C-alpha cells in the first residue's frame, strides 16, 4: 500500500510530465490544475486512466461530480482517502 505522500508525489509527477512545461515546484497541493489549464481537456481522459491505475479501482465517468479534479488535494480526497483510512 502506498503512503499518502507517495500518492501525492505520483500525482504531481504525472501532472508535471503531462503538462511538459510546468516545474514540479509550481504544482502545489491546491494549485487549480483544470482552472489554470495545466491539464488540458484532451488530457482529462488520460488523468482518469492514470487514477484508475494508481488507485486500482475503476472510475465511472458519468458518476464524476464537478470539482473532483480541481487540485491534488481534491483528487486525493476523492479517489484515495478512503483506501488509506
Amino acid at each position, binding site marked *: 500500500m502506498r503512503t499518502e505522500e507517495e500518492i501525492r508525489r505520483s500525482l504531481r509527477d504525472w501532472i508535471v510530465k503531462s503538462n511538459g512545461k510546468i516545474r514540479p515546484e509550481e504544482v502545489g497541493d491546491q494549485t487549480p490544475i*483544470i*482552472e489554470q*489549464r495545466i491539464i488540458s481537456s484532451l488530457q*482529462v481522459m488520460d488523468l482518469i486512466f492514470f487514477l484508475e491505475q494508481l488507485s486500482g479501482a475503476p472510475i465511472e465517468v458519468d458518476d464524476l461530480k464537478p*470539482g473532483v479534479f*480541481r487540485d491534488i488535494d481534491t483528487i486525493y480526497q476523492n479517489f484515495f482517502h478512503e483506501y488509506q483510512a
Partner: protein
Amino acid sequence: MVIDFNKLSGFGWSDNGQSTLSGSLLALFHRLDRLFLKWARECQADQYRFPPFISARELSKLDYFRSFPHLVTFATTLDSSEENLKEFAESEPLNIAGEVQLTRQSPVKEVLTPAACYHFYIRFERESLASARYVTTRANCYRREAYYSPLERQWSFSMREIVCLGTAEEVKDFLARYQTRVDQFFKSIELPVEWKNATDPFFNPSRNPKYLLQKLDPVKTEMIFEDRLAIGSINFHRNYFGEAFEISREGREAFSGCVAFGIERWIYAFLSHYGLSETDWPDLDYE
C-alpha cells in the same frame, strides 16, 4: 403563460428562425439593451461594434468547427469568373423548393458571428494587457438549430455581452460581481430566474473531452427562466482565449470571462411572465 404570437402586435416570424420586431416590442428590445449597457458602464466597459463575419481561420484556432459544426453558418459567394456567373444567372437560380442552384462557389473563408465575444479575442490578439480590460458589444449571432421557436430559439438573434480579460482573480471578481448585480435585478422585478450550471452545446458531446471537462469543472452558469429557458449566462473561459490568441496579462496568458444576454429570450420571458401589454412590464428605465 403561453404566448399567442398571432395576437402579438409588432411581431413577425419567419419559419427560418428569424423574427421581426416593431412598436412596443422593439421599444422593449432597446430598453433591455440600454439596461445591459448601463450595467456595462458600471465597470467602465468600452463599447465596440463589430462586423457580421468572422474569419474561419481565426475561429478554427478555437477548434470551433470540431466542437460546433452543427451550429455554424458560412458566408458563401459565387466564384466571380464571367463564365460561372453567366451560368448561374442564365440557368434556373432557384428551384421549386426555394433552394438556390449554386454554380461554382468562391472558397469559403468567413463565418457569420456565432457568439458576440469572439470578436474581442481576435481584436486583442498578441496584446499584453497592462490592466484588466472591460469591453462590451452587441451582435447579431447566427446558430443553425434543429428547430426554431419564436424568440426562444432563432437562427439569428441578438446577444449583448460584457467581457473581462485579465488575471484569473480579476475575471472571477468581475463574474461574481455581475452575478450578484443581475440576480438583484431579477429579484427586484420578481422575474423567476435561477442560476444553473450548464455546458456549451457541443457536437457529439459524449465523445468530446471539452464537454467532459465542462461537466467536471463547470465554467458556465445560466440564467434559467421558469426552469426551462436560458436567457443569459455567465462564462469563465479560463485562459483558453488568452492562449489561442496570445493575449497576456502580468506575463502569463490572460484569463477571460463574459456575461451574455440573449435579448429575444429576455423579451420572451417578459411577455410570458408579465403578459403582452406594455403597461404591465417593469419600468426598466428607472432600474
